[in-house]
């Protein structure tokens, strides 16, 4: 029976090539539009550190202006002051903790012909690498002692190592950064978390920084801050010391806590810290500390642009139009074949058999639409990539994976079968007598 229905379906599809093509194309385009936007959204709203989502927490304490919340309604600042970052880091109450900020540095290659170039870096602490499971190609990060002694060590990204040392194992070699010598302690393997969950302040969709060096050293050396700095209270006094002692926020802090009780303990510790600071005249706002895991933090920071959701909504409606189109065409087709169907019914085909036969035909159209839809999705993603060609990171956002491909096929077949239900039901309920009378 299977092969017979397959044959009947194919014949029927071939009987109206233009119309069948229109149905397949409509499903394909609808699926393509939906899947293109869904793929982009899937990538943008991914969680690259999902396996540690219940262990990592972003630290927020509300050190802001008593008269004006950092953000309505009563949200605490997104970063920490240096005072708080240092105090919380030094207290070392979490299993692991890291403070970091984005910096901008000039790398001077040894080679006399090579010109110095500017690059983004991250001033951070030893725990950054194990906390975020950062993969190493050569060597490793630095140890906690290096943080304490402001040691001149640096970790390079794979690309930067390629550029400066030709990709060889550069561990132990010396790199000149802004006129100072740093010892290379490790080289990262390819690492592009999407979104860049550990620092969402500037652009959540950008490459991670290309060099990493100790936080304490960067602060002591007054390295240029490459991220955001926000202040609400004027500095008391002049110079860098006054800036470090100010209420300006510019440091991101994450802690690694194992288990719910560890989280509760840390929250208690934070609250106690803020209460203590209140006695010193700081933290004029009500207690409002937060520990968000990476998924919560990305949600809080609204990393996925509204435009993606607008487009997704329109794409779903677009698919609805394509399906209505297909239903209409299938219906018209079945009405036109009413006589043929009536004859089959009169000759003894049961409703169930007719149903199977027509659903089969719809299934073929659905699978064809789905396969073509995958091609359309690929084209759609290339189109998006093209529109954003000036945005270097776009290539990471338009990647299709197997889960999306299978979703496309499932969506296409489900759509086609769904679309076929009504026309098929109508066909099955044809009263043979009405249509056979005239003949």
């Amino acid at each position, binding site marked *: 029976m299977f092969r017979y229905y397959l044959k009947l379906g194919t014949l029927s599809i071939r009987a109206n090539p*233009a*119309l069948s093509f*229109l149905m397949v*194309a*409509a499903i394909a*385009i609808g699926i393509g*539009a939906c899947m293109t936007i869904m793929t982009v959204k899937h990538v943008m709203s991914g969680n690259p550190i999902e396996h540690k989502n219940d262990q990592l927490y972003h630290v927020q304490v509300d050190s802001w*202006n008593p*008269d*004006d919340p950092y953000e309505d309604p009563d949200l605490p600042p997104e970063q920490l002051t240096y005072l708080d970052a240092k105090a919380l880091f030094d207290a070392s109450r979490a299993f692991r903790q890291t403070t970091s900020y984005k910096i*901008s*540095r*000039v790398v*001077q290659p040894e080679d006399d012909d090579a010109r*110095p*170039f*500017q690059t983004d870096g991250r001033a951070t602490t030893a725990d950054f690498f194990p906390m975020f499971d950062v993969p190493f190609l050569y060597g490793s990060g630095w140890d906690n002692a290096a943080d304490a002694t402001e040691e001149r060590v640096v970790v390079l990204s794979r690309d930067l190592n390629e550029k400066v040392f030709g990709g060889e194992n550069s561990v132990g070699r010396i790199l000149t950064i*802004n*006129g*100072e010598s740093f010892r290379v302690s490790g080289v990262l393997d390819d690492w592009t978390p999407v979104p860049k969950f550990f620092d969402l302040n500037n652009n959540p969709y950008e490459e991670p920084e290309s060099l990493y060096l100790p936080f304490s050293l960067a602060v002591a050396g007054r390295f*240029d801050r490459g991220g955001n700095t926000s*202040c*609400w*209270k*004027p*500095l008391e006094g*002049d*110079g*860098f010391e*006054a*800036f470090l002692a100010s209420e300006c926020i510019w440091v991101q802090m994450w802690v690694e806590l194992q288990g719910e009780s560890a989280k509760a303990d840390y929250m208690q510790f934070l609250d106690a810290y803020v209460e203590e600071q209140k006695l010193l005249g700081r933290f004029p706002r009500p207690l409002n500390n937060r520990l968000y895991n990476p998924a919560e933090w990305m949600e809080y920071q609204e990393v996925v*642009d*509204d*435009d993606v*959701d*607008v*487009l997704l909504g*329109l794409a779903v*409606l*677009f698919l*609805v*139009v*394509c399906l*209505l189109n297909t*239903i*209409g*065409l299938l219906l*018209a087709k079945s*009405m*036109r074949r009413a006589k043929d169907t009536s004859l089959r019914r009169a000759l003894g085909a049961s409703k169930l058999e007719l149903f199977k036969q027509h659903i089969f035909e719809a299934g073929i159209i659905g699978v064809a639409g789905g396969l073509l839809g995958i091609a359309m999705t690929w084209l759609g993603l290339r*189109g*998006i990539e093209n*529109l*954003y060609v*000036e*945005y270097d990171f776009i290539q990471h956002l338009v990647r299709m994976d197997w889960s999306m491909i299978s979703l496309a096929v499932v969506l296409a077949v489900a759509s086609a079968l769904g679309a076929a239900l*009504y026309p098929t039901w*109508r066909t099955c309920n044809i009263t043979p007598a009405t249509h056979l009378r*005239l*003949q």
Partner: protein
Amino acid sequence: MEFGPIWRTMMRSKGGYILIALQIAVTMAIMVNAIAIMQERGSKMARPSGLDEANTFAFVSVGFAPDMNNKALINEDLDTLRNLPGVKHVTASNSFPLRQGGWSEGLHREPGVGKSVSSSAIYFVDEHGLDSFGLELIDGENFAPEQVGWNSDTDDPWPATVIVSQALGEHLFPDHDGSYVGKTFYFNDDNPAKIVGVVKTLQSPWQGWAGVERAMLVPQRRDSEFVRYIVRTEPGYRDELMVQAEELLASSNKDRIIRNMVTMDEVRKLAYLGDAAMIKILTFVVALLTAITGLGLVGLASFNVARRTRQIGIRRALGATKTAIVRYFMLENFVISSIGIAAGGILAVGLNIFMVQAFSLTPLAWYVIPIAMVALWIVGQLAVAGPARKASNISPAIATRSV
């Protein structure tokens, strides 16, 4: 007219016609909302930044040797650039409009920390800032050279005088009629600043910010190894001067690099990349959607014609003219389109209300709806024209044949 028979025929097999009407309705809802979004983005992109964009470029100088004499280098660079033929004006600044990064500050009408009444983008420039940006001064005057001071990353940067955009003046002093020149406001704590000039338009660096039109010029040079130069040239000199400036400055001091060399045109393009892409995607969606719905209507009409071949033959045999046959199908399409369009209008407004609430988009302009209506009517009539003509060519003899 055949309205009566058409309506009765439609009522006999409602399912198919409801589907078409529904398809037209959803098509219209998408079309109207896509056009509304395109309009919103288009008008955002059309806002002037206040700069003479066509003749302006900018770049960054970053010193990397320890203990550089930043002040001397900046003065030397400004001299070098100002002496290049074709250069009209040059200033050092921390940022410029549309750059997506810069300095913003809360402002107060009274001294004290408290809650700020407004906020503004800050551009630290010298007395050449006004002309280098190419701003239109509509009130007051430019800074005098002696008003321009120096500050560093960690000093208190607030000067006694500022030039504000008209929009910032209005936002700071909403109840004030007349000139904003001479009015005083406060940077946090108690740093008074007096407005000495007002420019017509000066955008902030963040084109997506609600306060994008609020910005001010502050007469300060920044003592920093990181300097941004903004160069305005005579028309036609921009591209060659970009090359010259880079070569001259890169070779004048080996302890710094010159980077981020961009024209304002490129800056604008990058700032509105997302909006431009959105417009292109939606244009494509609307075109594709119209095509699919149009082709679907052609397919359905062809089916109907084929199904009614005998009926048409009979009508022809009984004396109906070819025009009458064409008119029948055109009218049928018009009726069904009208029902779809009416439902589509309601659906479109509903969807728009939802999107305005969920994504804070601008509500759609009323006239988009009639435009979409007419467009869809035309699409429907065009789609049915071919099959209708084919129907009119059916020979009356068909009626005599038993299939």
